[in-house]
């Protein structure tokens, strides 16, 4: 890390500013800082921002904008408290995923404990990737930090609620996947016929509400 700056700037061509940071929370904090400048009109010609686990990639339309983005980043001082900026979602979950027994075995907890720990936590969409609309949710309690499955599934059903490493997620669409499936959401995370098909966006807050499978909406 550059002693003068709270980030490392990586080379990625003339119009992309690639920031490397120390912690996930700093990625989110710097994203919010730059977003504020974009919304205020201080930064124009920013095309896209792609946060990840330790990096923030900012795509711009001109080399001058890239320079301006780095300049705004230099006015940022890291904070471990990220202000909530996004929408809030309450997602109803039936905790009957095919890996719930494996999670019980790995954690030594019973199903009710797993449900209450997973659904008591408050999550934030730290970043998206892997597939359209797939959000990496931070805030998963450490007792549920588990490795990915050794044999990834070739087909994970949409709306599967999953955990792996320090993250939780809801699979938006059918895809392959190696995360531990603990339940299923009653709400879709991807609306195929919508102009805005993704439900989640980076910075959003998520809470899971446990419901029993006898819920009549489950039949849909």
């Amino acid at each position, binding site marked *: 890390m550059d002693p003068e700056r709270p980030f490392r700037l990586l080379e990625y061509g003339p119009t992309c500013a*690639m920031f490397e940071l120390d912690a996930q929370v700093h990625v989110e904090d710097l994203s919010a800082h730059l977003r504020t400048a974009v919304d205020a009109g201080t930064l124009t010609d920013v095309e896209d921002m792609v946060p990840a686990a330790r*990096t923030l990639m900012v795509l711009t339309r001109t080399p001058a904008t890239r320079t301006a983005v780095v300049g705004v980043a230099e006015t940022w001082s890291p904070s471990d408290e990220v202000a909530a900026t996004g929408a809030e979602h309450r997602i109803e979950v039936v905790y009957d995923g095919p890996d719930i027994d494996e999670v019980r075995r790995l954690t030594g907890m019973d199903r009710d404990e797993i449900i209450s720990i997973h659904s008591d936590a408050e999550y934030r969409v730290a970043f998206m990737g892997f597939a359209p609309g797939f959000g990496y949710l931070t805030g998963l309690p450490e007792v549920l930090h588990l490795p990915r499955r050794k044999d990834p599934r070739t087909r994970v059903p949409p709306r599967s609620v999953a955990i792996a490493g320090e993250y939780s997620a809801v699979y938006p669409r059918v895809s392959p996947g190696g995360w531990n499936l603990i339940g299923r959401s009653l709400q879709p995370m991807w609306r195929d016929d919508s102009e805005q098909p993704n439900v989640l966006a980076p910075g959003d807050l998520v809470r899971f509400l446990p419901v029993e499978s006898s819920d009549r909406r489950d039949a849909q």
Partner: protein
Amino acid sequence: MSTMPTTMEVVHPGPIATFQDLGRHGVMGLGIPVSGALDERSHRLANRLVGNPETHPTVEATLGGLAVRFSGPVVVAVTGADVDVFVGDRQEAINCVLRVPRGTTLRLGAPRSGLRSYVAVSGLFSLPTLFDSSSTDLLSGLGPEPLQAGDRIDLRRPDPGAVNPAAISFAPVSVPTSHVICLVHPGPRRDWLTQSAWETLVSQEFCVSPRSNRIGVRLEGPTLERRRHEELRSEGLITGAIQVPGDGRPVVFMHDHPTTGGYPVIGLVRAEDLHLMGQLAPGDTVAFRPA
């Protein structure tokens, strides 16, 4: 004047043909790839020749073989790969303004050089859009399905006020070649590879693997050695990123690339040269030089 729309019927799609435009921009942060025409220069030219805005979708036909016919007279242009073009039995040429009578089949041969042809038709294909684009993204499965024999796609007639037909009937552009030189910028993880890896990348020649597609051009030839072997956390990718996976054989990510990846990116093909990468066929060669 008839109110029936003109339709394009797919007689034969060839090995793979998809609709492409300039792609979805500004949504990689939602996990959505850019997609769009791999040889954007040819896509834009085809639209200009028929008087369309450059943003209209064209048909991107890979390895030629496409055959289509229309329920009414249309103006078309075929650009990109060096292919024979037939309107009915009559041989025509690429990079020309072509008038295709009603019911007559437009057919592409196999490329002599290059890989992808762009077929623009005057008017606008009636296709669903997602984030202002009708591009087919073969990684994510977004956008229309690839073309299949029997498909019928309506064409919205061009708004007469918006038509800006080309003042020329032939565009004198060079055809793709089987060896190209692309300029590269250093990438974010150049220091995760050995010093000699970068020197190899910008001095040796690489051969295009048949496993290449719209997601990436896979390269055979010299392997690039890693200096750091720990696991890299996934990070943002951009089109043209040269990623080095475990086997040391570089992959140049093209428009349907995933938005993030966990192998080190050693370099970046400059944006101005991406259309050259988009025309490389299996067995073609590429050399990289520092930008």
